[in-house]
């Protein structure tokens, strides 16, 4: 495989990125309390700006799980057929995905001639990313002259037995390595061309999916415009890193949200016994969340 060398193109281009995060705030006798938040961030010239929505706090119970999810799905993507709601365990992530797709769609429809960075791949056909939904987002982006670049931090794809991101240590950055002939198992569908992106020194490589409806030359040019307009630290675009940083919940915010629900809904926070610790003592790893509200 031949690398595609890249040279940064400084022509002014808006770089935007979207990321969301979710967290479980606690458990009630009927279900769980979760919070989701999303961030859109963009860089014009030398300045970054952001729009952060949330946190949105939901009390999800067995009774309202279907209703909450489908109501939001209908509100965000009215054309989409509501499929089965996720299970209890997946619900925080699925709610965050829903918000992320909506933010991505909004950005794709409102921004012009820019580069939109997604966190993750352009693989569709999963329960949280229906093919039609992602196709519509990519189409809307193309209609506005935008290019979608999706960065995956950790991939399981392999090339010659090696992890894709570790397979080309000798290639000098900045470069792209096109990985052709990836055939996902149905119902999964790839809506992007898969590349390995080595954008900076230091042996940092990421899987990069670029909208496959765009001509090959335009795909490469989009990456070159990204190089010319954004900071690339450790091979990763700063805009996307900021999107992640700004939406992630800090411990301080979790305490604040617990404080909010405690005051607003008169809930009392109690420390539920940690069964792992209780049963196994120092050999118990402990549960990740054992607070009950």
């Amino acid at each position: 495989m031949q690398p595609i060398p890249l040279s940064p193109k400084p022509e002014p281009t808006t770089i935007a990125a979207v990321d969301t995060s979710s967290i479980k705030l606690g458990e009630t006798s009927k279900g769980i309390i979760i919070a989701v938040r999303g961030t859109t961030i963009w860089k014009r010239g030398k300045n970054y700006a952001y729009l952060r929505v949330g946190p949105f706090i939901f009390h999800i119970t067995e009774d309202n799980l279907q209703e909450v999810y489908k109501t939001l799905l209908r509100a965000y993507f009215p054309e989409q057929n509501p499929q089965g709601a996720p299970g209890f365990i997946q619900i925080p992530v699925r709610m965050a995905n829903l918000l992320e797709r909506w933010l991505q769609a909004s950005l794709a429809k409102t921004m012009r001639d820019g580069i939109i960075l997604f966190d993750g791949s352009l693989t569709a056909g999963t329960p949280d990313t229906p093919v039609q939904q992602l196709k519509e987002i990519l189409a809307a982006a193309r209609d506005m002259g935008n290019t979608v670049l999706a960065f995956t931090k950790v991939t399981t794809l392999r090339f010659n037995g090696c992890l894709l991101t570790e397979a080309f240590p000798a290639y000098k950055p900045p470069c792209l390595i096109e990985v052709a002939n990836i055939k996902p198992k149905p119902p999964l569908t790839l809506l992007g061309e898969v590349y390995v992106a080595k954008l900076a020194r230091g042996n940092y490589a990421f899987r990069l999916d670029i909208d496959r409806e765009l001509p090959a030359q335009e795909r490469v040019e989009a990456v070159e415009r990204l190089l010319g307009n954004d900071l690339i630290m450790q091979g990763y675009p700063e805009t996307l890193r900021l999107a992640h940083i700004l939406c992630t919940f800090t411990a301080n915010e979790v305490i604040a949200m617990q404080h909010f629900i405690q005051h607003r809904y008169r809930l009392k926070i109690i420390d539920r016994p940690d069964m792992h610790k209780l049963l196994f003592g120092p050999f118990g790893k402990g549960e990740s969340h054992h607070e009950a509200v």
Partner: protein
Amino acid sequence: MRLYRKEGNIIEILSFPNESVEKGDYLLIEDAEAQKALIAQVIDVQFANIPGILEELLRSLPDGGGIIQGEDVDPLEIAPHITYIQDSRLLICKIRATVEGEHLSPSTSWLPSRSQSSIKKLPIATLLKLAKVNGSLPITLGVTKENSLLTIDATSLDGKLNIITGKKETGKSHLSKLLITSLLQYKAVVVVLDLNGEYAGLGFTSDGKRNAYYNKIHVLTPAQNFKVALKQLHLNVILNILIHALHLPGTSAREFRRIWQFLKDKGCLTLHELGEAIRNWNCNQNVRDALFSRYHALVNSGFFTDNVAEANLLEECLLKAREEGGAIIINMRNTSPIDRQIVVEYVLGKLVELLTSWRLKAVFLFAEEAHLYLRETYWDDIVTRMRHFGIFTTFITNQPDTIRENIYRQADNIFLFNFTNEHDLEVVSRAARVDAETVKSIARDLPPHHCLVLGKVVRDFPIVVKVRALDVKTMGETRLFFSGVHTDGTSQTLSVAPYSVGENS
């Protein structure tokens, strides 16, 4: 406020932004079930160690510079809660006492309930009432932060050793003047060893008129209106002067004793006769030289006279003050270091003499920068022996390390003004009546004219007070070069004529 942690006699309390608590404030931690309450004083206010706070701060400065611009759509209004958590504070408090009903005890052996205790601010006025910091002879020092008056009892200064310390221009002399005038109201006898002539104006208002204390203030300036005739001196006093102030060796002192006795027996104790006696005395030449050099030092001081009419009797002033109270100001502004020591030796010797014979009941002695005139052995004397005679000393200094550690240990009251120097705070914190943390933490942040009062006067509840103003004439101001000089460079008193070419050419 919530009780967080206790270690030793330090208690940590979590406080939220809507609760206004500052260093020096008192808190009452009430445990209703135990029917007891702890009184704790805030000695430091810190940010609470909130998890994730570092990440929170870091993400607001992503590119190592300006804050990232953005908009938050926060429909549930969580942001105020985040700020509330972020701004929560940890109050480091020192436990001072336990209240049971109306009684205060210094016991800190119990622990109030963490979950059930209620914590509230304890107004200083209430604390003072609880601690019974009042009495029949009130002295109002000033106002506390809560604008309530801090009134101490003059009896809490009686028989006590006090220290007033703080860095320059923080109000030490002002407080000592306040204490002196307050003591005068209660007919106390006060002696002030005034190094810079600052107390000479105590009998006048700021606009130069006589005030209520005018008749009680006696300013004695050595070699001017304060002279001593040799025949008024006791041998011990003159020997103390010669040995301690003028460093006369033992052998020579023995000869001097003989000469003095000889002259006294002859009834001719005058400076002239003393000089003649030394000249003609049959003794070793070296002893004679030693005695002569000291004799000349005595003569040159101008403090001694042969004219009894010219000699102002310190004793007279003190006995006059005994009836209605009075302050004898020993103004040593223009007195040389050696002469200062001579004068102080005389004054202290005289005081001891009057007190031991019960002609004086007790004296409040105010000593400014005492290390400049007090001999080494007097320090211990003052805090032990002289206290029993009835000399109750107040040391005033801006160099706390000039006062010995044992003085701090035995000090009953400390009036502490601002210090920023770590070393100075370290010295003061050796006082027995206060813990080092309180001194170091609170004194560092005291604004000018604010004083941390420690010790018996406040029943060991350290209280910050803004010392009240006093209408007395300010004396002994520092002479300044630029005072009275206009910004254009001309002086009010010296006019500089413009340079004229014609005059010089």
